[in-house]
């Protein structure tokens, strides 16, 4: 309970600081404030998918219904955050590159990640038997996850593909990024990770209730 309020205050402070306290970047201007929201949400969406894959592996080892439910919960959370990351990225792209969507390698990879989440959820809804659903969707999440690093690291490095995404610029500038900006950025990263973990905990309590209900129903 205490954690929940702490998280609320923390995120409120981050939002406030992102717009008021941290200075805007000298070259990009006010639009640079997107890094306080866009990167953390993109980070959480990749983290969610990694967690989904890890719980998939755990399910295949343990055959515990809870692991499968956790994988599904992470997929839902990841889907929510990836929508936020994609939309905020597209708005940034319109403001800086002039078009909402231009198939930049980063946009391609986030789009494929989005498709993977959707396919995973579609697969889950197409199988009735819970055990079969669990093992098949676990296998799919593992197979699909392997393509993500390929899309993120290999395709953008092919000759002739030029990226517009400013990650290289930001990473190389990170050392002389304003200290206030860096502080807010890291606080936001921590905050968003905390929010996703809190959402996960909430959903898992719900899952535990449902599973115990089902167990009781079986006994009766």
């Amino acid at each position, binding site marked *: 309970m205490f954690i929940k309020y702490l998280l609320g205050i923390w995120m409120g402070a981050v939002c406030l600081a992102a717009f008021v306290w941290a200075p805007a970047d000298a070259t990009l201007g006010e639009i640079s404030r997107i890094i306080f929201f866009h990167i953390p949400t993109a980070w959480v969406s990749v983290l969610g998918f990694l967690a989904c894959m890890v719980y998939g592996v755990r399910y295949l080892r343990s055959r515990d219904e809870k692991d499968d439910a956790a994988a599904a919960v992470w997929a839902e959370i990841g889907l929510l955050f990836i929508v936020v990351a994609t939309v905020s990225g597209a708005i940034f792209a319109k403001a800086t590159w002039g078009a909402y969507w231009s198939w930049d390698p980063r946009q391609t990879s986030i789009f494929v990640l989005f498709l*993977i989440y959707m*396919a995973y959820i579609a697969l889950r809804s*197409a*199988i*009735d038997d819970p055990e079969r659903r669990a093992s*098949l969707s676990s296998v799919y999440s593992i*197979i699909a996850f392997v*393509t993500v690093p*390929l899309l993120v690291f290999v*395709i953008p490095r092919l000759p002739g593909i030029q990226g517009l995404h400013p990650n290289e610029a930001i990473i190389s500038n990170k050392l002389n990024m304003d200290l206030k900006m860096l502080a807010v950025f890291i606080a936001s990263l921590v905050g968003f990770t905390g929010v996703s973990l809190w959402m996960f905990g909430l959903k898992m309590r719900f899952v535990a209730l449902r599973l115990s209900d089902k167990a009781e129903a079986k006994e009766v």
Partner: protein
Amino acid sequence: MKSSSLAAKAFAIFAKDLRSEVRTRYGVGSVALFAVTSLVVASFAVSPYALESDAQSAFLWVVLFFSSMSGLSRSFVKEEETRTSLALKLSAPPLAVFYGKMAFNLTLMIAVELIVVPMFLLFMDVSLKSYGLFIVAIVLGTAYMSAATTIVAAIISKANSKGTLFAVLSFPVTMPGLIMAVRMTNSALAGLGMSSSVSEISGIIAFTVMITVLSSMLFEFVWND
């Protein structure tokens, strides 16, 4: 198990699928007709003009991807529909089934391409300059597609809505290979030599090996479910 007996069993499954395909010609018929139809429609639409090479290469792979989506899931769906999967489970180890089905899918795709690719060159008025790279692109792209979709076919054969789900699940998995194959084909149509696509060739081979190894590790969980 000895590797020689595994290869022999995989080959037996491949031969069984091939025999039943030769008798019914269901897979080749549906895949090839799908490909030819879409090819003719597009070529009719652009008929007095020739498309740019990047549009042509993208179009060739769109046709190959969706026509393979109409037929590659067949190998596993058939076993479920005719209820022969249980017998197959008893008579062969999972790995043999996986490699046998993968080899069959590859053969099916190559058979279809023998019809479709010459038609593509003819209808779309393609002036092909580097044959070597074009053939390499087709072969490697097909190998990647059949490697990546075999386990997806096994997954969807146990789900309810088999037809549409196959394309939905396959697309994210085949996307990296398709990107590379389209780029290679484009270079071939533009007349660039093999040396222009070294990173694509090595990349797609690495992807294919990786996805094959991973699928063969995971196939048992799908098959014995």
